[in-house]
């Protein structure tokens, strides 16, 4: 075991982690621990753009953006946070441009902007051009630009270090962060990083679904590390299903395709979104579009022999426009489906895309131990966190914005905390829990296999807690997850070595997914209403009287060592906007 000491430690090197690192490195001795090389993060897979009311191409302002974010989130958004997001969006985009990001340009040479789902002029009048973009590879450009600036600033990276435990120590009756414990992939060695401040920026949990746009590595490691140490997870029942994933594969096809004029059609060629969202049509918010697609499929208007998908039609758009604005997604269609998007519509289905919930934080990125108490020295930003700016449904282009605004804020806040506070003494045997976990898995002779359990988990999640949910389906998922968690105790790995043991890491990642799937299903079961991405067929309406509140899920450990999920609730912060019926 090695012990390292840094002022600030950042867990994850995607957009939020690197944006935080650029700020923290300028102000404090900072280390970034990342399970992947920095440019491998899934920020790079984001395509369509980053929202900011620059008003470069038409009238727009941050208040409209705030409203759209609150409405998009079905009023579960904390409105003070949404206001910060929308206000600081403008500087966040300009910061990136100054760092070198090659945005597409208008004829005047300013940053070009395009339409995106749920973003509107004057509180829902019509779609507005708010998304700043670089073709359909905006996330790639953000990731590259941030890494370039990390190189410029001399950010120190520990690549292929898996953070597996969060150290919390009680000091003067307050639980404080003392650092993290990490496993080095190359050597199998365990490292303790003592730090004054820790920022989690480790991404989402999408891999508990089978059809997902998420990378194999999005296994909720940060959420699981905090949850196991008794910290709450907020709004985990809210998961976004992006309307346009490649049929059966789940690979993302940007909403920008519809922003450029693409149309969804059923087997009769009908533009069915006109029925469900007369004003915004194909650019309604993602939860609305995903439900509409599945309604078409369920009512027998899906495409193909099994009627299990619909079409994204780009054939009426000029090939030059597709080449200039959507080069990557048209190539995906050619590579993975053998389809030419100039002439043929693309088969799509909703794909598990984004966790709205996560580690609860305030607007400075400080992690909360309950509804109000901050954990000193602990921060989170990006998809791992829940500020909450996305509420029950995130608007497209608001995640690239979120990582930049709250990545920067948490980087500054954590470094300031490091400057003003001392190290918290490490607990005795700080690496014990991780060492035990690794030894258990390496030595286990159990008969259960990681791949089997993971597939069963993914299949039950797809079948039971995806776009449509009922009491019955969620209960089925809860029971199945409990069975899988039991069987996980007998999981074993074939690779017993120390060097680059990805077999072992996949087993650990599965453990994280199982714990978080349980939190999600239990949270979903208790929310007897429909709101944003959480749609209950048995409770099809939003219920502001009983459920206009955030879910806070805690891990409870019984006297016999067994654990369960305890739910509590937190009020939503409302400033300007009273809840209204949500129509697009």
């Amino acid at each position: 075991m090695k012990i390292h000491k840094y002022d600030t430690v950042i867990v994850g090197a995607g957009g939020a982690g690197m944006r935080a690192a650029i700020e923290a490195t300028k102000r404090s001795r900072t280390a970034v621990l990342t399970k992947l090389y920095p440019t491998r993060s899934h920020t790079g897979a984001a395509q369509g753009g980053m929202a900011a009311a620059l008003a470069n191409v038409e009238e727009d302002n941050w208040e409209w953006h705030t409203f759209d974010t609150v409405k998009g989130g079905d009023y579960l958004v904390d409105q003070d946070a949404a206001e910060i997001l929308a206000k600081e969006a403008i500087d966040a985009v300009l910061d990136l441009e100054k760092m070198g990001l090659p945005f597409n340009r208008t004829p005047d040479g300013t940053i070009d902007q395009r339409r995106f789902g749920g973003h509107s002029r004057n509180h829902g009048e019509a779609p507005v051009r708010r998304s700043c973009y670089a073709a359909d590879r905006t996330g790639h450009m953000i990731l590259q630009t941030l890494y370039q600036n990390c190189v410029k600033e001399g950010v120190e990276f520990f690549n292929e270090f898996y953070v597996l435990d969060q150290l919390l120590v009680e000091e003067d009756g307050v639980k404080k962060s003392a650092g993290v414990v990490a496993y080095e992939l190359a050597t199998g060695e365990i490292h303790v990083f003592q730090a004054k401040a820790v920022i989690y920026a480790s991404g989402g949990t999408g891999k508990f679904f089978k059809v997902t746009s998420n990378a194999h590595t999005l296994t909720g490691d940060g959420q699981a590390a905090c949850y196991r140490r008794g910290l709450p997870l907020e709004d985990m029942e809210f998961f976004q299903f992006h309307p346009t994933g490649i049929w059966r594969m789940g690979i993302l096809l940007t909403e920008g395709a519809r922003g450029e004029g693409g149309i969804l059609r059923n087997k009769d060629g009908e533009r069915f979104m006109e029925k469900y969202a007369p004003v915004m049509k194909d650019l309604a918010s993602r939860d609305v579009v995903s439900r509409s697609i599945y309604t078409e499929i369920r009512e027998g208007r899906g495409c193909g022999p099994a009627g299990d998908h619909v079409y994204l039609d780009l054939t009426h758009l000029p090939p030059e426009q597709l080449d200039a604005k959507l080069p990557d997604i048209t190539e995906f269609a050619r590579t993975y489906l053998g389809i030419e998007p100039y002439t043929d519509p693309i088969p799509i289905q909703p794909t598990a895309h984004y966790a709205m919930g996560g580690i609860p934080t305030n607007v400075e990125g400080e992690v909360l131990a309950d509804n109000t108490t901050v954990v000193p020295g602990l921060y989170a930003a990006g998809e791992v966190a829940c500020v909450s700016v996305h509420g029950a449904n995130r608007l497209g282009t608001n995640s690239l914005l979120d990582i930049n605004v709250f990545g920067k804020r948490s980087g500054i806040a954590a470094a300031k905390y490091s400057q003003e506070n001392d190290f918290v003494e490490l607990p005795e045997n700080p690496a014990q829990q991780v060492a035990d976990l690794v030894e258990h898995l390496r030595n286990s002779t159990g008969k259960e296999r990681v791949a089997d359990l993971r597939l069963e988990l993914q299949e039950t999640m797809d079948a039971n807690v995806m776009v449509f949910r009922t009491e019955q389906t969620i209960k089925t998922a809860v029971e199945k997850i409990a069975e899988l968690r039991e069987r996980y105790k007998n999981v074993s790995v074939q690779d017993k070595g120390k060097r680059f043991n990805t077999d072992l890491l996949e087993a650990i990642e599965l453990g994280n997914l199982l714990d978080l799937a349980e939190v999600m299903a239990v949270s979903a079961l208790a929310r007897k209403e429909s709101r944003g991405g959480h749609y209950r067929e048995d409770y099809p309406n939003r219920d502001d009287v009983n459920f206009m509140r955030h879910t806070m899920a805690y891990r409870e450990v019984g006297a016999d060592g067994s654990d369960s999920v305890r739910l509590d609730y937190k009020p939503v912060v409302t400033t300007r906007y009273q809840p209204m019926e949500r129509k697009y």
Partner: protein
Amino acid sequence: MATPTLDKMEEAAAASPYITVTFRIRRFNPEISDESQWQDFQIEIDPKERVLDGLHKIKWDLDGTLTFRRSCAHGICGSDAMRINGKNRLACKTLIKDINPEKPITVEAIKGLTVMKDLVVDMEPFFQAYRDVMPFLVTKGNEPTRERLQSAEDRERFDDTTKCILCAACTSSCPVFWNDGQYFGPAAIVNAHRFIFDSRDEAGEQRLEILNDKDGVWRCRTTFNCTDACPRGIEVTKAIQEVKRALITRRF
């Protein structure tokens, strides 16, 4: 608009799509042996699936010790460059049907970087070369309050080289790099190009001097391996030629 009809893909999906394929993988684990060796695995796979899917089937069903890097699985993150049937490709962008599944499919680590285990190589020299070319925007004077202006034409000038995902497929396909790991390699030059030809940047001269080094652009022998290998379709050799020309003319 084209009316959706049953297309050929859906007809094909009705029949059982699986075929038996042999993967021939060069295994190496210094914890077990100092020598690498080829190992064959037979799997059932849909030919429309990716080589990465095949590797996962092997790892998940047959041999958990098989080790490789991967993340996004659709050609964006750059983790899974490997040598497939003797050519550098991304395993997640290569479909089984496109590489003749009648014969064993050979898979080995990319060349020119030290193999750590199976298909995993030491990426550090690759990233060091990248860092050495100052891969970031350098500007002088006061920052404008709004964005810097750039015409669509000036933006287009370096568009091709912004697509790089740092997968190392190009650099590790380059015979010069195989023979001399000191050579910056195509990927680093591509990333220098991205800034040299960016109208906002003011450090082009410095980067050109770095690449004027004995291990710089002049080592390129224009074999086009890099261009063929690039999974993003970047015209890598052309970019290198443009840097060479800029060094001679000092115009960029």
